[in-house]
């Protein structure tokens, strides 16, 4: 029960992270490992190569809990992560995808 309330409360404070990363096998493992290790829930992941193909963009939908700042710092430390930008949950990238998950 408490779990449900927590998730509902947290649902209003979701955050979208936009990562630009080097495009090679293994980058996803590095990033997902950081979140999994800390049991930091990732609600959604999208990853596509950028037009120049040496880089990819990763979109993460996460909850904004008190550990998020530390989480972002750990992601920024990764050698293959070029930049991290925070967006609000209203960002269109996951909203538009919702149609595919009904």
């Amino acid at each position, binding site marked *: 029960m408490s779990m449900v309330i927590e998730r509902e409360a947290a649902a209003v404070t979701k955050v979208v992270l936009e990562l630009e990363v080097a495009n090679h096998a*293994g980058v996803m493992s590095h990033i997902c*490992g950081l979140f999994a290790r800390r049991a930091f829930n990732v609600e959604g992941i999208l990853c596509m190569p950028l037009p120049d193909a040496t880089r990819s963009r990763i979109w993460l939908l996460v909850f904004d809990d008190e550990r998020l700042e*530390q989480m972002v710092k750990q992601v920024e430390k990764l050698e*293959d992560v070029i930049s991290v930008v925070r967006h609000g949950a209203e960002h269109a990238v996951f909203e538009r995808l919702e149609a595919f998950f009904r």
Partner: protein
Amino acid sequence: MMQMTGAELILRLLERQGIETVCGIPGGAILPFYDALGQSDTIHHVLARHEQGGGFMAQGMARVSGKPEVCLASSGPGATNLVTAIADAKLDSIPMVAITGQVPLPMIGTDAFQEVDTYGMTIPLTKHNFLVRDANDLLEVIPEAFRIAMSGRPGPVLVDVPKDVQCQMVSFEDYPPVAVPNALPEVDLLAIEKAAEMINAAERPVLYLGGGVIHSGASHLAVTLAEQGGLPTTMTLMALGTMPIDHPLSIGMLGMHGARYTNYVLEEADLLICVGARFDDRAIGKAAEFCPRAKIIHVDIDPAELHKIKTAHIGIAGDVTQVVEALLPLVQVKLREPWLAQVADLKERFPLAKPDLDNPRSHYGLVQAVADALDDEAVIATDVGQHQMWVAQAYPFRRPRQWLTSGGLGTMGFGLPTAIGAALAAPERTVVCFTGDGSLKMNIQEMATLAEEELNVKIVLMNNNSLGLVYQQQSMFYGKRPVASKYKRAVNFLKIAEGFGLDAVDLDTAENPAATLAEALQRPGPCLIHCSIDREEFVYPMVPPGAANTEMIG
């Protein structure tokens, strides 16, 4: 145009990087590289007896030199054996490049003989890692590995190279430039000014130094800062030696096994200036109750350390040398007589008790007797356990890189191979490895390496025939019920040492143990110095795990 195999290319890039000694063990998947290594005139290969030993030898070299050093292992069990030494380097921020062989590319993912996912396995243990799928990439990857290992907060980097990539021919015009560390981050002068104001305004400041001060080569600057600002100075386990222990401003090591007065001084502080330390739980105890009256200034080159455990009033992401250099002109000269008098009073009332210090067959007495027989040029390595804490408490450390210990990971088995590495990097120094009987058995095979390399390493074995710190915790916190901590049989370490070809002396039977010890330490070459220690001797004081630092026992 140059043409060579991937294996030879790795070798040439290591040579160009200034690598003179590598440690490891060959095996099927790394044999092309070893074949190339055999033709090198400049690189000395030290054959470890277990890959973990090879990894710690590289760490020992790096901890003494401050530069990234190299260890080698084959695929599969070679790589899995190496893992502990890599994890240890990560937690203590030691620069290291591990090169592992891998099964040929077409066999990856087929459960081939001696195949493990070394890349996947080492993601969480390394600062960064690579799986090289084309030998041409080595031109970029090898310098990158060194750059990453030594830039910012140092750490281990692993490069996994499939056997066929080692054999692949590469053609190229020029070697890549030799790797250098990244430029240091810009110093935030506004934050520096605020920090200086806080230091100047504080009444009871304490300087809290960590291993980052040593990595940055800033020990003398940190001491100057303390002297200028009149700052009592505590050191973490990793920072021992940054300020000489007999310096009037030194208040010794803080934390779980720090002296009572050290933790009491921190309790009184109104400002904590944390430099290159990371508020580790063994240092600060229960985080919420650490330095309850203090504002915090935190300096670290790793921005992720700022506000991680304790929220700092001022967090400065920067290199310790640059930050302290910028701080010094702004910090007022202060005598702080009332505060230093209060510190001196606490020190007098709650000093570290070192009973039986004159007896070289007691735990503190043995540490003291070793120190008495050596000068500050010696390197002191330890294993992990009671002996480690006794040495940390009682050995008079007076210079950075004098002290090599496994702080973050707490790896038993660290001592002997790390001491070997230290002796490889600094053959002119005497290297002492304080160890316990539990720890020594975890990498005892490296006695063979030690004998073969004829290095000036003295193993000082405190033998209580038990896993002493486990026995201590069970005695103190688990109703005096020892489980699996007392060995039922004793090992004859003197015969073992002899069997490996080492000199050995026994202080138990020596007529004049201090003289026997001093002679053994002064005689060149490897030696085991054995001394029995009472199992009922515990490390005091002790903060129970999870408790506040003021809740010390003993």
